[in-house]
Structure formats: C-alpha cells, structure tokens
C-alpha cells in the first residue's frame, strides 16, 4: 500500500498558486526525493501534508486515511513526523530533553521516555552530547538533533525539509548515511533537498516540481537527463536537442 498519496493538491495564497494540482505517491519503505528550483512550492507542499497549511484543493492520504486539515500533533501521533528547514531546537534545554519531548508521543512515563530518547541518540551516535544545551550546538549538530527528535516519535513516514542545508560536504555524507540507516529501520522517507549529490545518492525516485507543478518523475538518472528539468534549472540554452 502506498503510505502517502497526494491527489491534485492545490494551495493558493491569495492570488498566488503555490502548489498546482500536484499528484504523487510514496510506497512503504521508499525514499522519495522532491526537488525543484527555489520557490517551486516544495516546502508549501510539505506544510500542507504536515497539517500546517490547509490545502485549497485536492486530497492527501496517509496510510489510506484522508488527512486534509489534520492538526500537526495528531498527524505526529499517527506516525507522520517532519523536520523544519530552519531548525527549531528548544534552545534552553539539553539535547536529551529535546529528544524526550518526541519520545512522549509513545509513552506517558518520564523514565520510559528517557530510555527511548537515549536509544535514539545512541542510534544517531549523538549520545555523548546528551547533556549539552541545545542552543550551544553547531549547525550540523542541530540538524542531527532535529532528526533525533522526529525519530523519537517512532514515525512511519518522515518528512525531511532541506536537512542538509548549511552542512559541509563531509557532514552531508554523514547525513546521507544516517538517513539510509533509517530506511533499514523500516521508515519511509520523503526528502526535500537542494544538494544534488545528496538527493541523487539517497533517493529511489525523484519528483521535480516547478512553479508548483510536477514536471518530471522517475529514477535519479532519468530525472537528471530530463529535458524539462534541465530547462527549469538552467534555462533553455542548456538543453541538448
């Protein structure tokens, strides 16, 4: 079954159509990449899925259930987690505290949440920083924390919103490793990314959108050589015809 299905999603902001009849589906266990030039509507689509914006039109199904207009916290409890493009750590609290907030989705007891959070940190090789104040972390560490928190909610589908932005190439490679490991945990992953080498390496399939519309879909190689994609990113002169 498809874990996520989007049918003709439309999102308008006043007179601006940010997402234009977007349709796509994600199979369980897949890693789907979403790319497109800046302002193409990627984050908007994510925010519609994650319950931040109500869609203007179209339908979104998560594990067969229609989730239009669901609240973010309810979606999280159902197994849909997300990270933020501009990271939002609870800066005054420790790393462990931050992750425990996520763990509480699956339990009411503090001791259990603590255990689960420690496990997540161990999985991401982040345990040594558990008592560090979140506000003092480097950007790469904060991104890792963002993933750890989302992971602690034990999601079935994880939405990564430009989680590589601002990382050095070595850090990007590390992050790709981490995300690939997540797939082995049985988590389906939906990634927005700008850093091409990362998304090419990660994705099973890629969807490309431009001005809110899907312009290409397929394997990384197919998409990279797609004429429309090249036109969108680089302009007409670069198309080899």
């Amino acid at each position: 079954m498809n874990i996520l299905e989007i049918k003709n999603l439309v999102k308008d902001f006043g007179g601006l159509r940010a997402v234009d009849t977007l349709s796509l589906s994600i199979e369980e266990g897949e890693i789907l990449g979403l790319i497109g030039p800046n302002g193409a509507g990627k984050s908007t689509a994510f925010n519609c899925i994650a319950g931040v914006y109500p869609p203007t039109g179209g339908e979104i199904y998560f594990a067969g259930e229609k989730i239009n207009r669901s609240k973010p916290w309810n979606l999280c409890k159902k197994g849909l987690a997300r990270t933020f493009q501009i990271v939002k750590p609870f800066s005054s609290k420790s790393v462990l505290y931050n992750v425990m907030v996520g763990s509480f989705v699956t339990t009411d007891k503090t001791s259990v949440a603590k255990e689960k959070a420690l496990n997540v940190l161990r999985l991401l090789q982040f345990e040594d920083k558990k008592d560090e104040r979140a506000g003092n972390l480097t950007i790469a560490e904060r991104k890792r924390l963002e993933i750890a928190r989302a992971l602690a909610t034990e999601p079935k589908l994880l939405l990564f919103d430009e989680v590589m932005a601002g990382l050095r190439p070595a850090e990007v490679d590390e992050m790709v490793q981490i995300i690939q490991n997540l797939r082995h945990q049985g988590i389906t992953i939906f990634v927005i990314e700008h850093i091409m080498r990362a998304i090419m390496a990660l994705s099973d399939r890629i969807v490309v959108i431009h001005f809110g519309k899907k312009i290409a879909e397929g394997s990384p190689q197919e998409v990279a050589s797609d004429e429309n994609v090249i036109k969108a990113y680089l302009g007409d002169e670069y198309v080899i015809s």
Partner: protein
Amino acid sequence: MTRQNINRFALILVGVVAFGLPLVLRSPTYLHILILLYLYAYLTSSWNLVGGFAGVLPLGHSAFIGIGAYASTILSLQYGISPWLGMIVGGILASITGVLIGLPTFKMRGAYFALATIAFGEGIRVMVENVDNLGPLKINGPRGLQIPPTNIGFVNYMFNGKEPYYYIILVMLLGILAITYFISRSKLGYYLNAGGEEPEAAMALGVNVARAKLIAMAMSSFFTALAGTFYAQFTLYIHPKSVISLDFSFEIAFIALIGGRGSIAGPVLGALLLRPVSDFSRIYFGATLPGLHLIIFGIVLILVMIYQPRGLQEPLTRAYNRLLDKIFGGTGKKEITHEYS
C-alpha cells in the same frame, strides 16, 4: 555525599525550621509577616504554572483570588457551609473561569495576551463592584463582605491566634511546590516547556500546545483560588479592590519574574527577597517616603530584566553550588539540565 543528597538534606532542614518557627517566634507581628510571605510565595508559585511553564504573561490572576474568596465567604455566611468545602467550590469555579479565559486568549501573541488578561481581571472586578445581589447571593458591591470571627474551630476555618494560619499556609506552600516539582518532571511539564519555547516544533512532535496550556491554566487558577479562601478567612474582610486588583495581579507576576519564572525555586526566592523589602520600607519609611518600596521594586525589576532575564534564581543557584563546593568539595556539577531548566 552526592549533591542530590545534600540538597535533600538542606530542604528537610529548611522544612523543620519552618515548622518549628512559631514555637520560637512568639510575636504575632512577625508571624503575620511570615504568613503573608508564605502567601505570596504560594501565589507566585501557582501563577508560575501558567506564567512560567506555559511561557505566557498572565496579568489578571488576582481575579481567581477574588473568585475563591467570594465563593467560600458567600457559601459560609449565607448557607453555613464550611469554608473548606467553599474553598473547593471556589477552586472549581476559578478553574472553569480560567479555561474560559484561556480558550480565546492563548491563541494571541504575548503582548495581546497580557492585555486581554488585564481586561478580564479588571472586567471581573468592575462587575463585582457593581453588583449588590446576584439572585439570592449577597455580594455587596464595593462595600465587600465581612466575616464575623465567631464559631472558632477547624471546621469553620476560624482560629484564635496566628499559629494555625501559619501552619495552613505553610502546608499549602509546600504542597504547591511539590506539585510544581512533579509537573516539571512529567509529560505535561515537558510539553508546556516545549510549547512555550517553540510552539511549531512542539506541535510537529505531537504536542497539543493549546490543550497543555489550558490544563496548566485550569490548575493554576484552581490553586490560586484556594489562596483566596485563605486570605478571606485570615483577614476577615474582602472587597473587590483588595482581592481583585490590578496591583495585586502585577505584584504576583513581577515577583515571580524577578525570582525566575519557569523554575521551581524562582517564585519563592522572589517572594523571599522582595516581600521583606516591601514590608521594611513601608514600616520604616511609609510616612516620610511614601511609595519608596515601589520605586525600589521598579528599579529591581528593570535591572533584573536587563541583566538576569531568567531571574535571580540563576545566579543564586550558582552561588549556592559554589558554596557547597567549598564546604564539601566535589565537582559542583549543576543539576542535570534535562530535568528542568
């Protein structure tokens, strides 16, 4: 001796001293001052559940004191119901009111929320001032209600001498501190902190921020109202300007802020530091330099907000830990930050 054990021992010591004080300190004046001190510490700690943990700035909390005071007083004066029961009724009424106020206001941003709570507080005061009778209930408008000191006894919440009142408010204070402690370590506490600091992130992590805040508000208003009953039974006279005043609301909020909202020790520390200043300047300078304590208050407020916005509990806790280091040696490692901040 681990640091935790030292802290526990210190707390027990303080508790023993507090309980033993009335046996040593016979003067009713001093007991009176201490009772008011504990009362303010209790009120600021109750306020802290919303103003500290939920991260908003409620400036109308004295309305709940009023609800508690009037509820138990009317029930006991007109219907002979024990003020203890009236206290619970007042608490529940305040809780419901708090949730009703919270529902529309928690959606607002900080400054608007503060204004709305002021408007609610003042609105409630104006209404009570204007009403002489609410159906069969005698409210007496601005003249207020007097409680005749008859029927001494526990059931009637009426005592000779200050000692019983001292113990009641002390127990209440310890109670609210224990409750605050357990909440801060519980799921609700984590959710409130998260929702207060980064609501969007919290929501994406499964936190229904609005609901958590409402729960906190319901609890805070309940406990605040209990103090209203205490105040009524202690002073034996309540009127709108004394129990539902803007000054009272502001005082509670700012003592908590100076001490450090969001922490457990903060509000109590704030009360411990500021109430004596207030009493002292009023007693010694009241005639010659009126309003001096408010000037001091204002200066302290400004300085603390500029230099120690998280309250004085932060530098004081550090000094305390350093002192213990000197006495007992050891790493002096701060309390693990993830428990609460």
